């Protein structure tokens, strides 16, 4: 019994930091509809700033003062980020802002490294709260007790702010209907700034508060991100009580998981999330998302037309130039181009879902890596010939996408996105942990192409055929009845259903098809690298694809591949420099601000203005 109580207390104490970070994210999302990928970075900043301040400020007052100041400082940094980076892009298409926040992650990573150095910092102890108290004979750290008390206090303060003050009423009103808040004469821009700063401040506070239980290190940002997403989604996006309850549930379950099923540490959280969303699709306290209800859809997509003769000739010339690469390019140029082509196909497959279907998948790496693993496992365990394994890679990925899509497509909008993320993470954990079968983190080695394809040039041609073929086929499908039906389902599900189109079936097939194509890219990838590791299933891989699709231009047909080619190329150059993450982050933010329609979309508008292209009639 004593142990049980002690475990419960541990779980509740752990919930503290998690709640603070999650409530900030939830608040920001609720009001501004921004999925702030950089939230983990603000948490990390809170830890570092808190650490530095505690060194300076002495005693008990200094310690707690430092923690509060850390929260405040991070809030100010958040405010700065909002004003400089996000404010210029609120009018951009929905979810575009998350790309900017990804740029912020990279910038903060390098700035933190410059400021605090590479070594992990062990958090300072809280004066007067060192050691344990005994509760029913079990030791419980004093600081845990402090956290237990502080967290509900912060939660209550937030609750008071949200329900009992005018500001809170406005914020809640903005969560429901931001247009109306504007109509009430409230300066919406400053409301957003304020909420963003508050959310970031909470993350910073969480980071500083966990110092005595941990410390500050450069991997904190990504390490907490998935847990925070899970908490916010289980609780219901935008709900504070939900975030609190979910943080407690996850933390307490984790403590018992550690004790009774120690192997479960990676997957438990995601299983809980999937289960909750199966029963309550919008989280414990969430509201159904209605697409576009927040007036942030941006301008409507334009009609599409198959490429004219000129463009076709241009594409043919481009492909011919690529095909001739081995004549004038070095071996490495072919290797690099192979990489880029594979990534283009991967990005194009996500773009198909995102651009035509409006289906934002945060877990597209599951099908890319999944396809690669299908091929790798077949070769490793069944001795399948490379050619057959290569063909089965997209089929396996497509099948996986079909099953996952079947579950996820019950949801819409950001919940759909989060559920796809959860499944991708689940798959990653499985591969990462099930070492006997998948090789775990040590991966699967020796996956080289068949004899006739080995060598840089033959494999380059092999990739060229399948990547370009895949991209062209994706593009062709966009113009086919199926592609039209997918857009119809996105534009008006009501009308589509009322005219006999089974939108769920269309989306399922589109999701599987995109998974299939991502799996094809994965198959190409695995045999070009000769090995496969869980990295290819990681959340960062999904983000990579998401970012290039957005930066290329969601609302243009070629956005995915242009974005992919551009950023793969830039990355190859930038990583040669020391502070490449900073440069990359700034570049991403720059593109987001200067080209809110994505590279292709913005170029098109410029061209129209200059009269090179015919102006669309709705262009204002």
């Amino acid at each position: 019994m004593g142990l049980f109580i002690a475990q419960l207390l541990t779980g509740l104490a752990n919930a503290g930091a998690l709640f603070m970070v999650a409530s900030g994210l939830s608040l920001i999302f609720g009001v501004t509809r921004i999925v702030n990928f950089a939230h983990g970075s603000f948490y990390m900043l809170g830890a570092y700033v808190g650490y530095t301040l505690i060194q300076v400020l002495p005693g008990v007052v200094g310690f707690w003062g430092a923690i509060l100041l850390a929260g405040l400082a991070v809030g100010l940094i958040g405010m700065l980020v909002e004003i400089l980076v996000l404010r210029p892009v609120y009018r951009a298409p929905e979810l575009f802002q998350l790309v900017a926040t990804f740029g912020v992650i990279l910038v903060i990573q390098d700035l933190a490294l410059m400021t605090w150095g590479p070594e992990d910092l062990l958090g300072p102890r809280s004066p007067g709260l060192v050691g344990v108290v005994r509760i029913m004979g079990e030791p419980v750290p004093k600081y845990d007790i402090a956290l237990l008390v502080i967290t509900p206090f912060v939660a209550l303060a937030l609750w008071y702010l949200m329900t009992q003050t005018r500001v809170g009423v406005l914020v809640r009103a903005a969560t429901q209907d931001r247009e109306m808040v504007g109509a009430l004469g409230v300066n919406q821009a400053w409301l957003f700034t304020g909420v963003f700063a508050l959310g970031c401040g909470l993350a910073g506070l969480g980071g500083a508060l966990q110092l005595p239980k941990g410390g500050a290190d450069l991997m904190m940002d990504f390490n907490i991100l998935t847990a925070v997403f899970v908490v916010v989604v289980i609780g219901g996006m935008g709900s504070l009580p939900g975030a609190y309850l979910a943080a407690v549930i996850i933390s307490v379950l984790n403590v018992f998981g550690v004790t009774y099923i120690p192997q479960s540490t990676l997957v438990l959280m995601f299983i809980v999330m999937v289960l909750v969303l199966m029963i309550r699709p919008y989280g414990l306290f969430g509201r159904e998302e209605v697409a576009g209800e927040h007036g942030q859809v941006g301008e409507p997509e334009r009609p599409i037309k198959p490429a004219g003769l000129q463009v076709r000739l241009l594409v043919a010339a481009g492909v011919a130039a690529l095909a001739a690469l081995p004549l004038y390019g070095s071996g490495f140029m072919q290797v690099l181009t192979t990489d880029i082509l594979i990534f283009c196909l991967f990005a194009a497959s996500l773009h198909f879902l995102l651009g035509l279907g409006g289906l934002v998948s945060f877990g597209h790496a599951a099908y890319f890596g999944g396809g690669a693993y299908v091929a790798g496992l077949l070769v490793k365990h069944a001795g399948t010939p490379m050619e057959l394994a290569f063909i089965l890679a997209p089929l396996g990925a497509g099948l996986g996408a079909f099953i996952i899509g079947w579950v996820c497509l019950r949801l819409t909008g950001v919940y759909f996105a989060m559920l796809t993320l959860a499944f991708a993470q689940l798959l990653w954990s499985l591969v990462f942990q099930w070492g006997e079968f998948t090789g775990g983190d040590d991966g699967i080695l020796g996956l080289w192409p068949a004899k006739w394809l080995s060598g840089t040039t033959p494999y380059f041609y092999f990739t060229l055929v399948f990547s370009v073929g895949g991209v062209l086929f994706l593009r062709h499908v966009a113009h086919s009845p199926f592609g039209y039906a997918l857009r119809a389902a996105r534009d008006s599900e009501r009308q589509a259903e009322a005219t006999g189109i089974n939108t769920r079936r269309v989306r399922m097939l589109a999701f599987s098809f995109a998974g299939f194509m991502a799996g094809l890219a994965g198959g190409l990838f695995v045999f070009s690298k000769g090995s496969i590791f869980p990295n290819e299933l990681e959340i960062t891989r999904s983000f990579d694809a998401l970012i290039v699709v957005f930066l290329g231009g969601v609302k243009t047909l070629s956005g995915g591949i242009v974005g992919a080619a551009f950023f793969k190329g830039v990355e190859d150059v930038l990583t040669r420099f020391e502070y490449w993450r900073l440069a990359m982050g700034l570049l991403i933010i720059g593109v987001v601000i200067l080209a809110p329609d994505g590279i292709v979309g913005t170029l098109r508008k410029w061209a129209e203005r200059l009269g090179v292209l015919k102006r669309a009639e709705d262009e204002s």
Partner: protein
Amino acid sequence: MKRKTFLKGMIGAAALAAMPLSAAAQDPIKIGEINHYKRMAAFAEPYRNGIELALEQVNENGGVMGRPLEFIFRDDQGEPGEAIKIAEELMTRDGAVMLTGSILSNVGLAISSLAAQRGYVYLASEPLADSLVWESGNDYTFRLRTSTYMQAAMLAEEAAKTDATTFATIAPNYAYGKDAVSAFKENLLRLKPEAEFVAEQWPALFKIDAGAEVQALERSKPDAIYNVTFGPDLGKFVREGTDRGLFEGRQVFGLLSGEPEYLDPLGAEAPEGWIVTGYPWYDLKEGAAGAFVSAYQERWDDYPRLGSIVGYMTVQSIAAALEKAGSTETDAIREAFKDLTLDTPMGEITYRGIDHQSTMGAYVGTLALRDDKGVMVDWVYKDGADYLPSDEEVSKLRPAD
């Protein structure tokens, strides 16, 4: 531009073949070094410093075969796929004669797989995975650093000497953690058949829930604990474990916990009494070991980490192999590495012909506090050669080539 450098390389190679050596004497020999300079900066920076120190020394002494030795450093972001691309670039465009680098095992394994396929020599400097030289070993890959198995075996030897019979383990839940636990178990049970493992905890890497892990370990009431956690996880584990009295009256064995990279962040909270593997540079004053430490401190105004000595020995190994090969041809370098013996700050090491593992050893000692910092005391240097399985077992582990 790319083409130009490529052509230059070609011309250089042709010139080398056609002309007497003296003409090409000033052309540097290039080594491709791939690492996670950003993602694992705390480890990669001291490692790189060690390399640069060694390079300066080698080149001051006339280089290798009369030519200067040069390293090309490239960041792979900790991604195996990127590392492969960079490896290709280094070998085909930049004119590197062989590859080295990596801290992460998965990146090391990816490069080794490429090395075997393309016929590049790869010296895995830091990655620890046992499979690198055993299950997935190949003709072109060599490994310098004391592997997981060897270090676990050293700790198992110490553990067998104690009275403890019930053991609990805690290790990050991925390949390295699993290897480390199974090697420890295997060696301990061989030395002490009555040993019993009463709990195995597997926290997620860098996401440890330390309070819960400590409670779970306490619940199993072991005589001793074997710790494999490292980095931020280690700090959290030590703090919760100390607070909650987990380590009282228990012997703890910590893999790598004595390496400055992991020990120093703990500061005054370094857990006294743990038996660990590590690098006690502060006590190395004599001989080659001491000379390295003082040279390093003089050059960098900083103390060496384990990575620094590994970096230093990487350059030494490559220089020795090249000298022995007398050529920069892959096959010659490969042959030279087999059974290559050289003197290092850690003493003489040999790249075993049987599995390409070097016999670099490790320091094993007990943690204590000195001036509010954790240090290893009563340490001994254990030669790696003594902690490898028998040749017979090794040849069973390694695929027949």
